[in-house]
């Protein structure tokens, strides 16, 4: 659905446009049909520039990209016709009503039945009662919902969502997130940039961590394992220091350490190796209160990768 190969963007900056600024460097990526892909990175990482290139708003300096089978730089009008874009800022015509705003875009996207499409999304996003009100009187959440509706009017197969919940209150953010989930269930391909890592974890099938270039791309779980492996925490009534070496000697155990009354054990495949460890601990007289897998948050993974990248540079 979305394929990039060595995609780069260099901007000329400075008063005489003689300096160069590389916003995106050698991005190679594939986003599959029906996938929700999270594009994560700090401010200024080049996420919006990437989205703009993939929606044919700006041209790449190098590399290739295709969306829906159309090539960026060659089939720009077709790309614009077949993708939906939720921009970072809703950018509505504030003096015009919600209905008028949507009608304008439905006409520009050549939607066959403008009224039906507009009404459908006004109802779906709970804006029907306010359809004749000027958008200037809308809350931020309502504007964002309207912007989501605008991006969907022409029923695009591929959606680009640039920071869809930034600046929204928790309730509005949840509404937008729930709607993205619905879109995911409809089988649309979604390319989403976000700072909200919890949101990315919940919504995205795969994430890419990006800072000018792609640092890592995989499912959140696979990234976690790649960085930290799998760890199981044994919560004990009391910890005997000898049990650390006892557990470390069990097959499949990569490392074991004591943390307060807990044993934190790195394992390759906990489902297979846990029973032997439990047996060994019980035989040694340990009272096991609880066993759980230590899950690093996506935020930890993200920060670790960005930190490693900064040190590497």
């Amino acid at each position, binding site marked *: 659905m979305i394929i990039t190969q060595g995609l780069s963007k260099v*901007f000329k900056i400075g008063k005489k446009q003689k300096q160069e600024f590389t916003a995106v460097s050698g991005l190679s990526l594939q986003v599959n049909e029906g996938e929700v892909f999270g594009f994560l990175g700090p401010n200024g990482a080049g996420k919006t520039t990437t989205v*703009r290139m993939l*929606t044919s*708003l*700006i*041209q790449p300096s190098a590399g290739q990209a295709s969306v829906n089978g159309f090539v960026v730089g060659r089939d720009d*009008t*077709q790309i*614009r*016709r077949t*993708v939906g*874009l939720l*921009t970072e*800022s*809703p*950018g*509505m*015509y*504030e*003096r*015009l009503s919600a209905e*008028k705003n949507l009608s*304008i*875009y439905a*006409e*520009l*996207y*050549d939607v066959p039945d403008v009224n039906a499409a507009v009404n459908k999304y006004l109802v779906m996003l709970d804006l029907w009662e306010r359809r004749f009100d000027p958008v200037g009187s809308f809350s931020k959440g309502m504007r964002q919902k309207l*912007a989501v509706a*605008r991006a969907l009017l022409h029923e695009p197969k591929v959606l680009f969502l640039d920071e869809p919940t930034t600046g929204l209150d928790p309730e509005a953010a949840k509404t937008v997130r729930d709607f993205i989930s619905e879109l995911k269930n409809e089988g649309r391909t979604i390319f989403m940039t976000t700072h909200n890592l919890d949101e990315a974890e919940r919504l995205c099938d795969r994430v890419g961590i990006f800072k000018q270039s792609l640092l890592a791309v995989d499912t959140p779980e696979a990234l976690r394992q790649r960085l930290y492996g799998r760890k199981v925490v044994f919560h004990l009534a009391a910890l005997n220091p000898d049990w650390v070496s006892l557990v470390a000697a069990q097959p499949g155990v990569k490392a074991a350490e004591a943390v307060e009354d807990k044993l934190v054990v790195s394992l390759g495949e906990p489902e297979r190796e846990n029973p032997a460890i439990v047996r060994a601990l019980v035989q040694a007289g340990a009272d096991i209160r609880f066993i759980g897998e230590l899950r690093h948050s996506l935020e930890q993974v993200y920060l670790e990768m960005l930190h490693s990248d900064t040190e590497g540079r």
Partner: protein
Amino acid sequence: MKHIRTIINKEWAEVFKNRTVLYTTMLLPLVFAVLPLIMLKSTAGSIPDMGDVATTGLPEGFLKSCAGLSGSDCLQAYLVSEFLFLFMIMPVIIPINIAAYSIVGEKTTRSLEPLLATPITTVELLAGKCFAAVLPAIGATYLSIGIFNLGLRLLNISPGVISYVNSPIWLLALFVLGPLLALISALFALFISSRVTDPRVAEQISSVVIVPVMGVMLAQMAGIVTLNMTMMLISIVVVSALAFAMLQLGNAVFERENILTRWK
């Protein structure tokens, strides 16, 4: 064509919700129609019968336009001719009011990016925005001339003066020169609007386009140039060439990418 119509409707829906722009567009035709009527009415009784046009002392170049008129009618026609430039200022001012805000306004409200993300082509976008500025200007000019013509009849102004106001020079000015001036004005304002970051700056810089029209008007008042058919044809040729150049320039310099990324 459908996209152009959508952009025109969008621009009008937005622009005319701004009451300042709406009132300016509506007020100008009234003011510009009433001013010459007041002047004509106030001078009608005070001009003595001058007999032949040759005795009026008017510029030689203008006298050709007075064929068939009495001396006093010719003098009134000369006074009215100065107001023709006033009617030509209208197609210049109104497009600036509308088009100067057109692109930079979309930048400041952040609506430009979603708009450019639609399948609309650059030509369609520019044409839509241009027509949205030009058509009200032409409409306002015709409205003004309509009111002026009606006023001439209601005030019993001499038929000779009325026939002068409907002479080929005036018709060329209204149906050819005026629309061309409106086009240049709109294109210039759009060009400026796409280059600046502040709507006020766009309007101020765009206003420069009024200067040449004012210059010609003042030159005529000072007797440096005379409004006749030759001058009208020269003006049309020059303005057509300028309009063509502006059209080429507008399409060449409107780079979607630069407008989107280099405006902060």
